């Protein structure tokens, strides 16, 4: 039906941790997550620690089996594929992670790190592989002098470039990037973000891009999903979600970010309490214990995602017809809430 490259349907993941005499403790890392990414688009995922961002990445990459739901890649369930089909599929899905120091074999040179995926997938001959390796390096702005270097002799930014080269050398359609710039300085981060944008344009890549930095997500994403304790609480086109958030959590996140403008200091922000433990998930809406707009019903009813127009939806009961009269103007879309 859609031109979605990737669809996440009702995905849940529960980890059983530390059994006791009275049963096992369960950690619900993801719960009923529905998302999709159109071809050549970027879906940004934002959320704080424990929101389930990384678990989602691992499930999408088929590194982790979901407890519920499906992940469809080009319309077909990842877990229904045979080992052989999956091997073919791995070429299509690549990943870039935060910690580049640990994603390379320290004894490998840049050349062997980039050759490995070609060898695993039996692409080309020895000579054509060498050419592909140089070409991939070139795409990330490095030249052949780097081929004989070892990862630890590179700067963080250079290592992340090599990681990106390794991800694109198989010409994948999907790249999952989990906090790829979080360990980098601002000036280097800008370079890597621009590189992500360039290669997306050049190769028609589709991104699942995860970051806790809302500025980064704003810059690279077309669509953003805001996660909170394993749920998507708001999703929509990034410009709309950030300029007119319709969920109290998204608004709180946006307001909590210090703006680089001393004339816009906000000293009267509502203080959100502590993040609840994922072991003891709040009843009803997960955000209600910290929500400045919480109603009594919010402790009982778990809100679905309510569409609020233009591909934008938010999981807040204030969008429910029963309670919409109680909603402040910014929730119902009548006013711009964020002081920008």
């Amino acid at each position, binding site marked *: 039906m859609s031109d979605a490259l990737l669809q996440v349907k009702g995905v849940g993941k529960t980890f059983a941790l530390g059994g006791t005499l009275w049963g096992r403790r369960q950690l619900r890392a993801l719960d009923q997550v529905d998302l999709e990414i159109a071809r050549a688009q970027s879906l940004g995922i934002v959320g*704080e620690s424990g929101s389930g961002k990384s678990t989602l990445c691992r499930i999408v990459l088929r590194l982790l089996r979901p407890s519920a739901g499906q992940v469809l890649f080009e319309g077909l369930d990842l877990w229904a594929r045979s080992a052989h089909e999956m091997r073919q599929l791995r070429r299509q899905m690549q990943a870039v992670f935060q910690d580049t120091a640990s994603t390379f074999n320290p004894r490998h040179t840049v050349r062997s790190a980039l050759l490995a995926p070609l060898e695993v997938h039996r692409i080309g001959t020895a000579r054509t592989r060498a050419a592909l390796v140089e070409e991939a390096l070139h795409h990330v702005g490095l030249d052949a002098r780097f081929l004989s270097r070892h990862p630890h002799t590179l700067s963080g930014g250079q290592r992340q470039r090599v990681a990106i080269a390794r991800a694109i050398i198989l010409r994948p359609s999907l790249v999952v990037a989990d906090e790829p710039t979080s360990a980098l300085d601002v000036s280097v981060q800008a*370079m890597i973000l621009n590189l992500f944008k360039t290669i997306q344009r050049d190769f028609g890549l589709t991104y699942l891009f995860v970051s806790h930095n809302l500025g980064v997500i*704003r810059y690279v994403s077309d669509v953003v999903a805001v996660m909170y304790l394993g749920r998507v609480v708001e999703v929509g086109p990034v410009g709309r979600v950030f300029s007119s958030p319709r969920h109290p959590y998204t608004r709180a*996140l946006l307001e909590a970010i*210090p*703006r680089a403008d*001393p004339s816009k200091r906000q000293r009267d922000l509502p203080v959100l309490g502590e993040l609840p433990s994922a072991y003891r998930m709040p009843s009803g809406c997960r955000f209600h214990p910290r929500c400045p707009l919480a109603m009594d019903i919010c402790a009982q009813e778990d809100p679905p995602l309510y569409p609020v127009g233009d591909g934008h939806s938010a999981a807040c009961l204030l969008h429910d017809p029963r309670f919409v009269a109680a909603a402040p103007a910014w929730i119902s879309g009548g006013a711009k809430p964020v002081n920008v």
Partner: protein
Amino acid sequence: MSTAESDRRSGQRAVLEIDHLTVELAGGRRAARVVDDVSLAVFPREIVGLIGESGSGKTMTALSILRLLPRAASIAGGEIRLGGASLTSMSEAELRRIRGRRIAMIPQNPMSAMNPVLRIGAQVGEPYVLHRGVRWTDAVAQAVRLLRDVHLPLPEERAVEYPHQFSGGMQQRAMTAMAIALEPQLLIADEPTTALDVTIQAQVLRLLLEIRDRHGTATLLITHDLGVIAEMCDWVYVMYAGRILEQGSVERIFARPSHPYTQALMRATPTVDATDADLASIPGSIPSPFELPAGCRFADRCPSRFERCEREPLLLDVEASHSARCWLLEDGRE
């Protein structure tokens, strides 16, 4: 001293003054200058920001104040004064009476700064035992009061817990409680919120403002985040490769960033209010402290460099309360 600095000093006595501080790191045959001729001041009730990327020397500057530099590093020149008294020439015994009592530090990673096998109440109350000779039971009672002051919910119950039972935000608030225990004149916060989620960061930042308002504490806030600087600080020093490249009141710096490095940093930072403008990255990388250029430290990455940049620029006035180390400011060139 530039006139910008003297405007700010009029009539007041600084809590902290750093004069021409140079810190060297021993490495093989040569010594590396990780902090080079840095001068800065923090006045009462002020929150002063020291911003820089990795390798700028900001943390080494902070550690010099407490004389807690790693073994390979040493102060090679300059003086640091607290309320007029020289910290650089004090004996270790004298320093021990200053640390925690008159200067306290909030580290980036509270988990590694805490003792994992000591209850929170005992850690937070320990300064009273060490510096005031208070009995442990009384110190723990004081700790509970402090934990309440930093808005930790259920402080009596939390005081008997251990650090691993605390979330990152709670640990950072406990560290802050410990730091303000003896009402220090100077608080040094080294990336205090970098490891925290934004909603929790907002709480910790607000706590620092509250402490300043309540006790008149002077704060040196070290960060790489322009947003944190804009939100919190009165005065800013921009550091790069061991040098201060720009300094001024926070309003002036953000209204009119004048060093090409400060400008580049601002254009490289993605914001949530972004337009479709591309981020400008800064080509190249920060010079190694073992191979510092003779001229301007930023010259090889600077889009506006010209012949003069082969000589190191002085701090030149941009306007009142604002100066930058760039030749472009000379004779109204800009």
